[in-house]
């Protein structure tokens, strides 16, 4: 069994309205040293597979077809046994 953590974030250049608003809210709480906030998504999978390469290829495919939208998002992931 493999544990996969997938991180999905908006591409640089796509306006992150949630990040911007959260940034303002942090400032109003007094955290004036926060310079940027980006809000993304974290997806955890428990997945069976014979080896890391096979699991990696499947995760790539999942991210490209469903879990992320390549028009607006980038993704990266970590696989642990």
């Amino acid at each position, binding site marked *: 069994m493999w544990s996969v953590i997938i991180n999905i974030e908006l591409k640089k250049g796509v*306006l992150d*309205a949630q990040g911007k608003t959260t940034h303002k809210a942090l400032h109003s709480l007094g955290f004036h040293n926060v310079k940027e906030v980006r809000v993304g998504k974290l997806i955890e999978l428990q997945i069976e597979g014979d080896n890391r390469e096979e699991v990696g290829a499947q995760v790539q495919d999942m991210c490209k077809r*469903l879990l992320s*939208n390549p*028009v*607006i998002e980038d993704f990266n992931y970590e696989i642990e046994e």
Partner: protein
Amino acid sequence: MKFGVVQFPGSNCDFDCYYAIKNVLQVPVDMIWHKDNDLDGYNCIVLPGGFTYGDYLRVGAIARYSPIMSAVLNFAKKGGFVLGICNGFQVLTESQLLPGALIRNTCLHFICKNQTIRVENIDTPFTGMCQKNQILQIPIAHGEGCYYADKKTVDELEANKQIIFRYCDGSGKITKEANPNGSICNIAGICNKERNVLGLMPHPERSTENCLGSVDGRLLFESIMMYLKKKSILVK
């Protein structure tokens, strides 16, 4: 001439579309369940507004893999008309039947109000009954209607005249103030290169009767009807 309205789990404008087409425009129309996979005999398929699959993951992302969507992709490839309204527009961009994506409104609020949009291209089957630069009043109701595409894609949309509607003020001016959701270039609706797939955030089915405050939405449906009628006369 026959229309079909697709019902996904979470669609909530399906009956509004069905009512507008059947009762107001008086055209035969069926509801089509998302698990169906046959679109034979239809001329135009409407993907209605709503919150398909609870908007989980991304708006439209899960609906895009509904069984009916492979039939819709084939239908569109063969030249059938597809009209995606609001969440239907989001499903069309996720399906890559239309370029770009729809993201969270820049103001973060869900916006529900009457909106003026300007017809940018009347040389399409969806806008043939409109006047050049006509201002339409059609309501919007969405939280994720901010149209985004990279510069290359927007340039292509402009060059191919695929931008069909833009948010405008009451006098037809395209201004930042008239842009409710932060859409790039005030884009409210686009079509594909072949001009048989249209997606828009405003709800034309909600402005088809005088009691609703505007009948401008009828123009979209009437344009498709007119185009289909002309085509069938030519075929005969």
